[in-house]
């Protein structure tokens, strides 16, 4: 009895599971998922709406491509074994390119636009006159987003100096009961961008020294003061939405929503690509305003940027080069710019008319100002900086005085640099 019953049940189960498995594999175009070749594999760090936007950018080429979203592990695209490497990789940091030159194929010469020469050439390694990384996306990271209507209602204006910003925060908290700032401290880069803006736009010289690799500069008085300024702002009474601990575990899109969706904070310091979050979650256009991080006199033309670069892994196939040629077209990113938002093309040929009014201002700034890559994207200690800033936020959450937290942070940073 048991064995016959068992057999019947097994058949029933096979009947249930079989079609399911078939349905799981049958729906999609069979060639692509089965890995039977012919398509170009593109590894990107984008996810969610940005990934969908990139698919639209690939447009007619999408059928030839398979996307491999690797998130923050984009480095894994260059695993030890050559066999499984994607054909094209979108790298989010210039420092990732220089270490991998031997694994890369040179770009087809015609995709390099003259307009890249000025800023990008100095950032990107080249060899024998050939370029290896195609600038695709550039992010304006000196932006602070704020709620226009809220500012208008309470008669507030965006700050132009650091002192004004501190006063503004106090006024917001006292007058409105709303928090001044939302932070996404779970994303280390988010805090690092804040710090980099303070350092680049408030202090002359030290930023260049750090980028040049002078480790001693991490112990300088300027860096210490910058930490103190940051800690003072974050540690202000009720300045952070939900408190420092919430800020520590929130990621950057959550911080954007705290401001524009839940209205629990007035401002969020986030790069231009925050626009994609704002648009994905239906925020009214007339509520969205931006200002640039306050700068010391004479330093206002400096902007922190980051960028995504497309590289071809060696040996590059004809198809991969064709996909790259398509992506290098000035019009290629237009679907991302128009439909999703939060994208500024690195290609100077892309028409500014495609951007939303908010992003057009930022895109224009990028063509006229001095651009500086973030420290996290340039120097090896960038990772440590992120951890140190998260620890600073954590200390504030635990009730440590801002001054003490800042001095612990600068000691930790100076110690790591030694």
């Amino acid at each position, binding site marked *: 009895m048991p064995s016959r019953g068992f057999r019947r049940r097994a058949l029933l189960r096979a009947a249930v599971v079989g079609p399911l498995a078939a349905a799981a594999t049958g729906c999609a175009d069979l060639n692509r998922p089965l890995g039977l070749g012919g398509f170009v594999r593109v590894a990107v760090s984008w996810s969610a709406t940005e990934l969908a936007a990139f698919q639209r950018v690939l447009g007619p080429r999408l059928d030839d491509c398979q996307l491999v979203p690797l998130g923050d592990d984009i480095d*894994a695209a260059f695993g030890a074994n050559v066999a499984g490497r994607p054909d094209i990789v979108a790298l989010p940091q210039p420092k990732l390119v220089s270490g991998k030159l031997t694994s890369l194929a040179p770009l087809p010469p015609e995709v390099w636009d003259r307009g890249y020469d000025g800023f990008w050439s100095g950032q990107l390694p080249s060899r024998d006159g050939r370029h290896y990384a195609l600038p695709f996306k550039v992010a304006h990271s000196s932006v602070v987003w704020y709620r226009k209507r809220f500012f208008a209602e309470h008669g507030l204006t965006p700050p132009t100096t650091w002192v004004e910003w501190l006063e503004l925060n106090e006024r917001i908290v006292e007058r409105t009961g709303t928090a001044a700032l939302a932070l996404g401290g779970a994303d280390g880069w988010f805090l690092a961008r804040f710090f980099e803006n303070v350092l680049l736009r408030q202090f002359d010289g030290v930023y260049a020294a750090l980028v040049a690799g002078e480790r001693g500069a991490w112990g300088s008085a300027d860096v210490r003061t910058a930490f103190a300024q940051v800690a003072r702002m974050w540690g202000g009474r009720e300045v952070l939405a939900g408190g420092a601990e919430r800020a520590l575990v929130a990621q950057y899109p959550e911080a954007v929503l705290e401001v524009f969706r839940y209205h629990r904070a007035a401002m969020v310091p986030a790069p231009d690509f925050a626009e994609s979050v704002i648009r994905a979650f239906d925020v009214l256009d007339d509520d969205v305003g931006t200002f640039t991080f306050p700068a010391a006199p004479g330093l206002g033309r400096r902007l922190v940027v980051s960028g995504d670069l497309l590289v071809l892994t060696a040996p590059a196939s004809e198809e991969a080069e064709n996909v790259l040629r398509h992506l290098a077209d000035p019009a290629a990113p237009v679907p991302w710019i128009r439909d999703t938002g939060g994208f500024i093309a690195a290609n100077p040929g892309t028409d500014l008319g495609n951007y939303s009014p908010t992003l057009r201002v930022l895109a224009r700034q990028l063509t006229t100002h001095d651009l500086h890559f973030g420290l996290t994207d340039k120097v090896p200690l960038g990772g440590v900086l992120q951890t140190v800033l998260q620890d600073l936020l954590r200390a504030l959450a635990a009730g440590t005085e801002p001054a003490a937290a800042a001095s612990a942070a600068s000691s930790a940073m100076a110690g790591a640099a030694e």
Partner: protein
Amino acid sequence: MSPEIRVDDGLRLEVSGRGVAGGLRSPGMRGGWNYLLGLPAVVLLVLLMTPMAWTLVLALSAPWGAGNFVDILTDPDALRSIWHSVLWVVIGAVLLVAGYAIAVLSRVVSTLWRVLLYLMILPFGVSAMVSGAVFRMIFDPNGERGTASALVGGVTWLGPDLIWWVLGSAFAWSWLGFVVVLFRAGLDANIGFGRRFGNLRLPRVGPVSAIVVLTVLVAAIRVFDLVLIAAPASISGDVDVIGLLWWRMTTGSTETGAPAALAVLLFAVVGVLSLFGTRWGGRGTQPVAVPMPEPVSARTRRWSAGIGVLVCLMWTLPLVVLVGTALHTPAAAGTGGWWRLDGFGFASLASVADTWLWPALTRSLSIAVPATVLVVACAVPAAYLLTWRLPHRTAGALTVLLGVLAVAPVQMYAGPLSHLLAGTPALISLVHAAAGLPFATLVLRAAFAAAPRTVTDTRPALDAVWRRGRYRPALVAVSVLEFVLVWNDFIVGFLIGGPADSPLALLLWGEARQFATSAGTVAAGAVVSALIPVVLLLGTWRTVVAGLTGRTVG
């Protein structure tokens, strides 16, 4: 038909090499060609052991013999991660006690029990990645999105103070069902009473406790992807475990000695657990069938029913959260909880289906199916040889070896293998098969050894293993567990495979990069990825339990 599992006799998963095969082997057997049957298994084990030996060499090299170990044991970060791994063992132990208690109570409320069983075993088919994701959704500190925060406001659940509760709950959700079901099967064997605490006499679970204790403790100490997805990056230090620290050390620097030493340390801990855990679990007097007196008062019944209902609700919630979130549009799921009545739709599912879902499903299938076939094909002859053909002492020694290999952490062989295998999907199946082979062989051997007392020929031919229905539950158990394990795998794909493999769990992890605001698509991907293993497990779990406990399905 009652859901109880009828008992013929117990099964013990021995790694000590004593006893099990005693009296089964006919003395004076010859015929070396038989041993060729074990060749595929030996090849797979060599594939596993060579990189492990290499890791051991790395750990013991430069600067001097034990130098790397001293470095680790004096490094505060490493010490913290070791302490956290110990904490996971404690969590595992608590889970075992709770599982035992629920199993005992479940005998009092038999109707409710049937519902409870299906509910509790279901999450066992869900990957750790998915279970971590669900609990991060439940405990989202934002009250508009997180269930727990909506109920209890003002608490930062994912913060450094409470994150361990979140992780512990996710682990319990995955594993408690497995513990309860197997303990219950053991209790139903009516083996009698064990320890006595005052008036309380604890019913004995029997030999199956060895499998349960070992599996859960080893799973607890090897926790990896659960922590990776559930904890925000900013507090990763607070929940760091040996396995994760190993990963950060290998990706963060080119140093090989210290991470190798860390892997060896982890392996040593689970190896010792395996050796002693099974020995302790399998010990005890011979099973004597004692009819269990069950003088259950109405009050006890009420209490048991109450606890049963509570567990039912607690185990259902994560499922509701997951499916409810997946059925909201990405915009609705990113800004509000699953309970919101607006924003329902299939847009999240459509979004993942448009991007990465189908290729990933096929990829996972193309890794899991060959791995399962390979494991069964290699483990059956190996177990057959161990049970009936090999000399007693050799079989015993090999069993000890398999018991230790069965718990070997991926970190022990990932380093050297990733250099050879990354980007070759077929070979990843091979690694999975090699990793799954020891456990499969042990289960099959125990099933083979437990049977022949009722069979006339003590040494059957190999093909009789299938023809004789007696062993089929064990074969089903091994196949189902291997398939579910490989399908749900993150760590092997992550540490050894490259982007070329990109199975489900890996892409889900990429999708979860901006966790809270991607909740819709993450949940959608999670639901689809969990469907196949869950259906498979629910369809076969009774046979699986029978296979693991050496019983027939009633």
